[in-house]
């Protein structure tokens, strides 16, 4: 044995290192768990550096943007002095517009108006894996972040927290191929499951039967069924719908990535919101007034029905409503016993049979 180890020292070390890692892999697969210690070390070594660099980048970009903004203001002031008050007013309006458009401010505005309690975070790094669709954010357990929390932007859903460290968290983006969320369509209230496709900007909706109605341009919102995303957050707009074998193939463009992904909000306490009602797709068609009465045509033509649509079922329902009023028994109401519609009706309650005309 000693001879073997000294003769094949390199190979022995290689086999030992590989075996150790295989055991590590097997342990994770078997227990479906994680070796947290190694991850904490790696994240602790790399992420503070990423955070410092990101902080530096933001400071530098702010400095330059402030510098140029100040230059603009100076020139603007010179010009404004020689211009009329109307131009000054316009300038103020434009400034207000610009400040509102600022991403960070819009995030804060959204945060203030959102019914859910959220925590803002910066993205500080990407996943190192193959086809990585995970990112790291600069908030962790110290900020109250927990695995499974929803990550959103003012424009829509962005992902969910998968791993949490003390000062950082790992977030699986909605574009990841394994990401899923319960969704509902805005107009037709069709339930489905959103899944990422592994590339930016788009995803697909699954488990929508061919018989259900989904149109291109329709919006999908979170349904709250997954217990991660509160109901009513925008997911995306349908770009294409195809009939599949049994289920529709629906593709959507994600709304959460519209303005890039630098700052996000983590929902700490979610509040379900109603799905916003769809705006009327088109104005009702304008109809001409009915043609004037012409004595040559005889009696004026009356429309067959002017009131609400009446079907056989409506007539039977109305019949039983009248019966119920007579008997003091609410037919069709739950709690008082289901009505027996098979019971023969009383003769006097039957509608009078009209004599058939030959």
């Amino acid at each position, binding site marked *: 044995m000693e001879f073997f180890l000294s003769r094949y020292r390199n190979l022995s070390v290689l086999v030992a290192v590989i075996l150790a890692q295989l055991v590590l892999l097997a342990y*994770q697969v078997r227990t479906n768990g994680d070796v947290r210690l190694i*991850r904490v070390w790696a994240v602790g070594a790399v992420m503070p550096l990423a955070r410092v660099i990101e902080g530096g980048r933001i400071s530098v970009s702010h400095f330059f943007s402030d510098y140029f903004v100040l230059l603009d203001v100076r020139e603007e002031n010179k010009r404004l002095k020689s211009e009329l008050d109307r131009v000054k007013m316009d300038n103020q309006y434009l400034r207000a517009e610009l400040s509102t458009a600022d991403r960070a401010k819009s995030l804060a505005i959204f945060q203030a108006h959102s019914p859910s309690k959220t925590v803002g975070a910066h993205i500080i790094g990407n996943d190192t894996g*193959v086809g990585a669709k995970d990112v790291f954010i600069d908030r962790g357990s110290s900020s109250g972040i927990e695995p499974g929390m929803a990550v959103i932007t003012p424009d829509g859903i962005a992902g969910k927290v998968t791993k949490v460290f003390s000062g950082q968290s790992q977030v699986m983006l909605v574009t990841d191929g394994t990401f899923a969320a319960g969704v509902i369509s805005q107009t037709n209230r069709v339930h489905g499951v959103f899944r990422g496709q592994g590339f930016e900007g788009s995803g697909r909706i699954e488990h929508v039967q061919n018989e259900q109605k989904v149109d291109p341009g329709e919006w999908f919102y979170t349904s709250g069924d997954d217990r991660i995303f509160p109901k009513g957050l925008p997911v995306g707009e349908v770009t294409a719908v195809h009939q599949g074998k049994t289920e529709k193939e629906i593709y959507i463009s994600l709304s959460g990535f519209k303005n890039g992904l630098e700052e996000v909000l983590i929902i700490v306490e979610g509040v379900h919101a109603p799905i916003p009602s769809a705006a009327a797709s088109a104005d009702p068609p304008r109809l001409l007034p009915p043609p004037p009465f012409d004595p040559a045509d005889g009696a004026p033509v009356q429309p067959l029905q002017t009131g609400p649509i009446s079907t056989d079922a409506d007539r039977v329902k109305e019949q039983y409503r009248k019966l119920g009023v007579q008997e003091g028994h609410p037919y069709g109401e739950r709690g008082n016993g289901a009505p027996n519609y098979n019971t023969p009706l009383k003769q006097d309650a039957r509608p009078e049979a009209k004599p058939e005309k030959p």
Partner: protein
Amino acid sequence: MSGFSQQYREPLRKERSSMLNVAVIAGIALLSILFRVYVSRFVPYLQYLELPLLVTVYFSLMWRSPIAGALFGATVGLAQDSLSHHLLGMFGIVKTLVGYFAASVSLRVDVGNPLLRLVLGFFFFFFHQLLYWVMARAMLGEALDFEVPQALVLAMLNAIVGVFLYQLLDRLKVTG
């Protein structure tokens, strides 16, 4: 100064320079991972640049020690695993093998030649991607795609970057 004091100081200096080398090597490995984590955020195409792999290959070639290469590869791979959503050990095993084989090659051929480095960079990138794909499918049952033409193009691009990176690291003279 007597010969005794010179002899006394020499090992100290060597030890310090060796410690410095270890720190610099750790720093370079950390930077390569940081590049993968941070820079690819802004230029998505740079996520295809496998700097941790290139660094593993370089140090394994320079050290000419299969054990050191394997251990360095395992460390870099595990660190990379830790910062991904994958299970720990996937990149670890692949980079262990890359480090071992790269060091084994360096025992037989002169690895200072840029052309040879280009070929080795190309080969080891392709080997890395292929082995990862095989392991992900065989051991974890993941349905990953492996597109050979794409892998070959990426291997060539990484190899080209590797040649320039190795020149830079040669100038730093950090070989441990």
